[in-house]
């Protein structure tokens, strides 16, 4: 089956993310399924950025090391990615900046002549790529028309010149796929998460910018006003979490977004959410630490931090989606579960999922569960923390006539007034923990564990979060089963065990240095036979993981 990888690289600040998106949309429009990897250091201009767009006839979740097309805006791109080239790789470059073998285009000159800004050179190189690969002009043109809001005409002029300057390379021809399946939207995990939260009824989003969730803030700040969303970017993450609790206390469904360092600052408020039983969803995007670490790269290192953050013992829901459909579904479900059980939830994702591009098929998402929060009946005297069998107390919000709504971070009685009395303290601790039973019960009917790859195979890859995506592909390629716990707290240990049943060898695949999923499962006596770990901030390339899996299973 035909499959293509296209790399476009250059200096930070030259719009290589956008260029990658245009390339991805072109391939998407041809009927391929696409994935886009975007690699950038923590800086604004200079330094080296690149995107790798992979396109294949089936759903994909990863990039490959090797590329078929190397689009180089500068010399550095050719040098840094030399290892990605094979005999058939077509190199296209800005001949005004680089002298090399391959297809050179005088992009700077063309841009200048067309009176376009430097950034329009990207358009030229993309057009060159279309020319070389035989992608029809109208596909390119219609994509540019959609993607370039400003200066379209000069960009089209550049594109036209570059397109016609390049002879098709027969061996590199990219065919349009027959239209058997629908074209799917192509977006990032942050965008899918935002849509999922909105689908779950989000009314307020509060965040302080932090990679890799800043773009979720930007996305939600820009959604149309008629979706009824209030977005606030306050002074810091402490303010973020406490504002979120204020919104929820007043009855608004709320989420916050951050990464590990910002989450540190939220943990005290997170614990308050647990004690005061005020629902909040935390969109926690992982990036490599400790501390500032590698802020624009990816990892899976906060599982246990998320599971144990905040003083005291309380129930939290943690879910780590692996693709856009899971992200959409679970962002929405987390909001509903938080409100049904009046608990905090964490959607644990990472830069790889948050900022990379994938296809999204909303129609394959299971129906969002309908889980109304328990509302006060307006008859019985209102007690915010009424002791019930489920541990869940009816909700009322200030301004509800006749209800005095008292929430409290101290140990409290049913009405929300502070108490230190041993009996009440014990009952309330049991109440808040008891909610975990209902949560687990509700989750039993939900897709908490994903099995993919060769489902019946004996050798199994056990993975989580965005890393599960590349595992799926390896599983298909090598005939391995792939088991991915999506919900991590409460961990559906029984379902994981079931999914692993009949496995011969189980190998975990994680993007961290200590084996965090492995540790979680050890608690439930699930002990894999091998582990594949990676901790340089770069997600596994498909071929890289394939090789490591072969080695592990040799």
């Amino acid at each position, binding site marked *: 089956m035909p499959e293509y990888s296209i790399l476009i690289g250059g200096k930070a600040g030259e719009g290589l993310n956008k260029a990658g998106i245009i390339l991805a949309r072109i391939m998407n429009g041809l009927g391929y399924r696409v994935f886009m990897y975007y690699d950038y250091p923590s800086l604004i201009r200079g330094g080296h950025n690149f995107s790798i767009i992979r396109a294949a006839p089936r759903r994909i979740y990863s990039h490959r090391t090797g590329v078929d097309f190397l689009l180089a805006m500068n010399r550095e791109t050719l040098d840094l990615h030399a290892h990605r080239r094979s005999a058939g790789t077509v190199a296209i470059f800005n001949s005004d900046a680089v002298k090399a073998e391959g297809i050179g285009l005088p992009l700077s000159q063309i841009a200048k002549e067309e009176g376009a800004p430097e950034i329009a050179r990207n358009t030229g190189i993309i057009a060159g790529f279309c020319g070389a690969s035989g992608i029809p002009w109208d596909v390119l043109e219609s994509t540019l028309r959609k993607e370039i809001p400003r200066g379209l005409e000069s960009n089209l002029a550049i594109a036209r010149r570059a397109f016609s300057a390049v002879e098709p390379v027969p061996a590199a021809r990219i065919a349009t796929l027959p239209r058997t399946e629908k074209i799917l939207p192509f977006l990032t995990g942050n965008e899918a998460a935002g849509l999922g939260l909105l689908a779950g009824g989000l009314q307020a989003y509060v965040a302080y910018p932090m990679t890799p969730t800043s773009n979720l803030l930007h996305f939600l700040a820009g959604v149309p006003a008629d979706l009824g969303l209030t977005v*606030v970017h306050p002074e810091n993450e402490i303010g973020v979490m406490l504002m979120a609790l204020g*919104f929820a206390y*007043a009855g608004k469904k709320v989420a916050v977004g951050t990464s590990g360092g910002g989450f540190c600052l939220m943990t005290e408020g997170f614990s308050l959410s647990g004690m*005061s039983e005020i629902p909040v969803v935390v969109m926690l995007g992982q990036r490599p630490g400790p501390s500032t670490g590698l802020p624009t790269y990816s990892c899976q290192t906060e599982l246990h931090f998320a599971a144990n953050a905040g003083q005291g013992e309380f129930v939290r829901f943690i879910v780590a989606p692996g693709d856009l459909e899971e992200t959409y579904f679970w962002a929405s479900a987390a909001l509903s579960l938080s409100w049904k059980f009046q608990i905090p939830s964490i959607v644990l994702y990472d830069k790889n999922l948050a900022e990379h591009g994938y296809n999204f098929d909303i129609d394959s998402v299971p129906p969002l569960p309908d889980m109304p929060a328990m509302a006060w009946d307006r008859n019985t005297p209102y007690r915010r923390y009424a002791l019930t069998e489920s541990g869940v107390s009816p909700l009322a919000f200030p301004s509800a*006539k006749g209800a005095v709504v008292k929430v409290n*971070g101290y140990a409290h009685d049913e009405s929300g007034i502070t108490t230190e009395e041993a009996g009440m303290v014990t009952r309330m601790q049991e109440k808040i923990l008891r909610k975990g039973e209902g949560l687990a019960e509700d989750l039993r009917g939900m897709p908490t564990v994903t099995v993919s790859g060769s489902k019946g195979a004996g050798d199994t890859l056990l993975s989580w979060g965005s890393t599960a995506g590349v595992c799926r592909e390896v599983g298909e390629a090598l005939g391995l089963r792939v088991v991915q716990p999506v919900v991590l707290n409460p961990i559906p240990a029984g379902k994981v065990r079931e999914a692993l049943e009949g496995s011969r060898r189980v190998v975990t695949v994680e993007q961290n240095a200590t084996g965090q999923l492995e540790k979680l499962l050890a608690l439930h006596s699930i002990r894999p036979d091998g582990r594949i770990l990676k901790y340089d901030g770069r997600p596994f390339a498909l071929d890289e993981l394939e090789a490591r899996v072969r080695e592990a299973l040799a």
Partner: protein
Amino acid sequence: MNGRQLITGAQNTWCPGCGNFSIQFALKALLQDLEKRGTSLDDVVLVTGIGCHAKMADYLNINTFYSIHGRVLPVATAIKLANPDLTVIGCAGDGDAYAEGLDHLIFAAKRNVDITLFIHNNRVYGLTTGQYTPTSPLGFKGRSTPAGTLEYPLNPLELMYASGASFVARGYTRNQPLLKKIMADAVRHQGFSFVDILQICATYFDVHDVYDKYVYELKDHDTHDPAKAMKRILEWDYNNPAPIALGTFLEREIPTFDGRFPVQPAVPAERMGKIRTILESYR
């Protein structure tokens, strides 16, 4: 009786002679007054921090959010944004608002969100047994500074002025009539209302004799003249003995943060359709 019972059954555990009683008394009057003027008490929310002052949340029979140390303001701000019809009042300690959570205070003033903040400024950490706070005088011998602090106090009014607060006042727990008036004015003011209340701590910093000697009520003061306000604000630096003005120093009419926010539809119609429309743009 037409109003509701304003005091809960919670046992009151302030020390005898504590200034918090006076603040509670004034707050009760404030609530009664609000009710009389047509505000339903169901539409009032009190947010507190942690400390002796914060027990107010337990004692008053109204909607309350008993939050954590230093965090009254982000909570109160969001409640107001979520439901602009609510009257949102915060009670914070000086440790709370001037140390642990100082940046929230400055941002509440900067934003001019329409809430009212009462600082129970006893110039000491009461509940944690008597350490210095940002308004304790230089040389204060608290339990963390047995040899005396090495820092000058902040003048919170000056800081609030510089942060753009639109209502700046000072009360005193031993001047009940004025305290009540200030409180009522503060709640009535549209925008961020800041009231520093000099509160007696009977156990750890009882300087009522000093206050009684130095306080005076602002008279013929033009609250809309910033220069005059600043002059009065600078009279006493919270350190050296000097006349201590009580009353409202400053009022400014500025659009409120909550007022600038676009009004949100209660339940957006066709949510799913809108989501699918957004999704289309990614095809």
